């Protein structure tokens, strides 16, 4: 299982700060499609995906125990 961390609007929409999903073996792009189809997160257009605290491209392959985070457009500063 992989922990998927949620922040900001996504966290509020889902009413929780993380969810567990089997993501190992999937690419980041496949995970995105999976989450859009199988969860109530809705469209993840414009949402970056981080793997182990680094932004990842769609082709990046997720491994067991990788910590994943959905990163909405940032607005710090």
């Amino acid at each position, binding site marked *: 299982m992989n922990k998927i*961390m949620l*922040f*900001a*609007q996504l*966290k*509020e929409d889902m009413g929780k700060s993380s969810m567990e999903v089997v993501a190992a073996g999937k690419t980041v792009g496949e995970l995105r499609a999976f989450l859009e189809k199988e969860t109530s997160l809705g*469209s993840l*257009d*414009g*949402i*970056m995906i*981080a*793997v182990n*605290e*680094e*932004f*990842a*491209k769609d*082709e*990046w392959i997720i491994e067991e125990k990788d910590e994943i*985070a959905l*990163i*909405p*457009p*940032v*607005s*710090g*500063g």
Partner: protein
Amino acid sequence: MTCEITRDPIKIEEIYQKVVRRDAGAVTTFVGTVRELTHGKKTLYLDYEAYESMALKKMEQIVEEMKERWPVIEVAMAHRIGRLEITDIAIAIAVSAPHRPEAYEANRYALERVKEMVPIWKKEHWEDGEEWVGNQQGTKEYVTGKPEEGDLLE
């Protein structure tokens, strides 16, 4: 600590003291504060949230980038999270250098990079509602820039 994420009020003097040194002839400090009016709309207060471990890592990465580009500088920065009132300090960045050009340039670079890729979000609480900035309905896009090619795992 060069970079910090804190729930407490930011003290500019502390950030400044981290970069003061004998061979620096210039120290620039940038202080980002909570603004009341944005395009005529009145903000009551802000809530900042961070993916703290990643945000710190990205802030440290920015410092490394800066030192590569301007080897003569020292940097310190702090970002506050939680509820911030109007005029509260959200971010402070201090850069020291032997001469002013590097201190000015590097400081601006730091803030622009923070706005691009440090996972921190702010929620505006307006008089008539609330909204996570950068994630308005229908415009789910990075509005102030976004992580660049080199920032991505591949």
